[in-house]
């Protein structure tokens, strides 16, 4: 069972290794002179007053939700696209229904005006 | 440009309205200048604007140091239809450098009056947001007055290299 997953595992290990190497090298070799004003948030050279407890507008949250909703849909299409020959026409019909359902959701959201950026 | 008689005509009908508004007129290099009493500046400029000088090109301050009413504020008016320029000048003493603002008549005067306040210390009564524009907010002194030292570092020559502390002392 492990054989077929080997490339994916090697891929994951390599990715993690490269990321770790870059972080540790910077931490080890980079000169470290912590300064008080180096920790301050950078706001074009002036001391920043935006405290982290700041409340954002609702439209940012709405757009994030819509993005997640429609972007995950693409992820579901990948496995089907890779093995389309093996699954045959049944999978094709399946994905069409899936996409149609989501497009209904998309039209609803569109008509309700959630996509208006204000 | 309003030629000499034209300038006198303008001064004349300003005086008809308010006798002591125009103190004197100067005609130099084909350019007319009206020297106006500081109290009547708003009325004069409004009247000139209605009579055609609708565009205020520039408002700038001048320090005539030796002459007594030291601080001067110049208003460069421009009549875009007849391409006619006129300068209106106001002379102020340093003890009470107060004059009415024209920022509500021309929005262009907002920044320029703030610069005059910043550089010469002329206070514009009624200005929406009179504070320093070019110098830091907490700067003391008005840099462009003639008695303000020009500042900067003295240049090191052989004769004064011992009096001036080197940069590392």
């Amino acid at each position, binding site marked *: 069972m492990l054989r077929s997953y080997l490339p994916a595992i090697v891929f994951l290990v390599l990715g993690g290794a490269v990321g770790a190497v870059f972080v540790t090298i910077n931490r080890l070799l*980079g*000169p470290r*002179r912590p300064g008080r004003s180096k920790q301050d948030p950078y706001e074009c050279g002036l001391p920043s007053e935006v405290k982290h407890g700041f409340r954002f507008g609702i439209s940012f949250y709405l757009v994030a939700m819509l993005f997640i909703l429609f972007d995950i849909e693409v992820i579901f299409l990948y496995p089907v696209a890779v093995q389309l020959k093996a699954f045959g026409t049944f999978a094709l019909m399946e994905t069409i229904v899936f996409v149609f359902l989501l497009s209904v959701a998309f039209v609803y959201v569109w008509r309700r005006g959630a996509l208006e950026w204000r | 440009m309003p030629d000499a008689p034209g300038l006198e005509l303008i001064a004349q009908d300003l005086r008809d309205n308010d006798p002591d508004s125009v103190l004197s007129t100067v005609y130099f290099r084909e350019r007319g200048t009206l020297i106006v009493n500081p109290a009547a500046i708003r009325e004069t400029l409004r009247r000139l604007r209605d009579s055609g000088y609708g565009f205020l090109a520039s408002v700038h301050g001048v320090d005539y140091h030796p002459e007594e009413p030291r601080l001067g504020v110049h208003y460069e008016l421009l009549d875009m239809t007849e391409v006619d320029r006129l300068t209106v000048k106001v002379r102020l003493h340093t003890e009470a450098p107060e004059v009415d603002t024209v920022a509500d008549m021309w929005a262009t005067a907002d920044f320029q009056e703030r610069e005059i306040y910043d550089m010469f210390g002329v206070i514009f009564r009624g200005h929406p947001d009179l504070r320093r524009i070019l110098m*830091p907010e907490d700067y003391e002194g008005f840099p462009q007055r003639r008695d303000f030292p020009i500042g900067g*570092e003295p240049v090191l020559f052989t004769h004064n290299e011992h009096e001036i502390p080197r940069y590392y002392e």
Partner: protein
Amino acid sequence: MEIKREKVGSGEEFRTRQLRARDMLRGELEGDDLDKYVEERVIATKLEKALDWARGNALFPATFGLACCAIEMMSIVGSRLDVARFGFEAFRASPRQADLLILSGRVSIKMAPIVRRIYDQMLEPKWVIAMGACSSSTGVFNNYAIVPADKFMPVDVHVPGCPPRPEALMHGILRLRDKIHGDPKLGWRERYGAVGTEEELVENA
């Protein structure tokens, strides 16, 4: 100080190197030939020198256009003076991603604390080039409003000129690169045999 001219390599020596490289590629090079070949290619160096070599060749300048020198700084990115040939093309906007601050322009007293804060917020290792006469000394305007960069910031390279030609700024950047690589060419001190006449500061004399 006369200029010595040596030939790069006479014809036949160049031929032998070509043949050895071909044998190397075919894998037929053995014995001491192989050792000599490898020795020439590998330089034994300390980690620090390798780091300096890497840092020197990939400085990310922070776009810090103050005044007229900024226009000349912009033109070194242009096509005639391509600073990308030396690896300095990526002008970063935020101090977090930059390690070279080119102070191009005049620093007024209202701007000095901001320049100092941005210098503090840059990550180590960081270098500063004071471009133009105004940031090195007060330049043309020796008056109440201008502060020379040395007064509030450690500066590595001063580029004279008002504004300095783009080639002068490029020369300044390359001179900084030599300084990072640890062998700062002393320029006129070498040309006129004045090595050793550097002015020592009083506190560390």
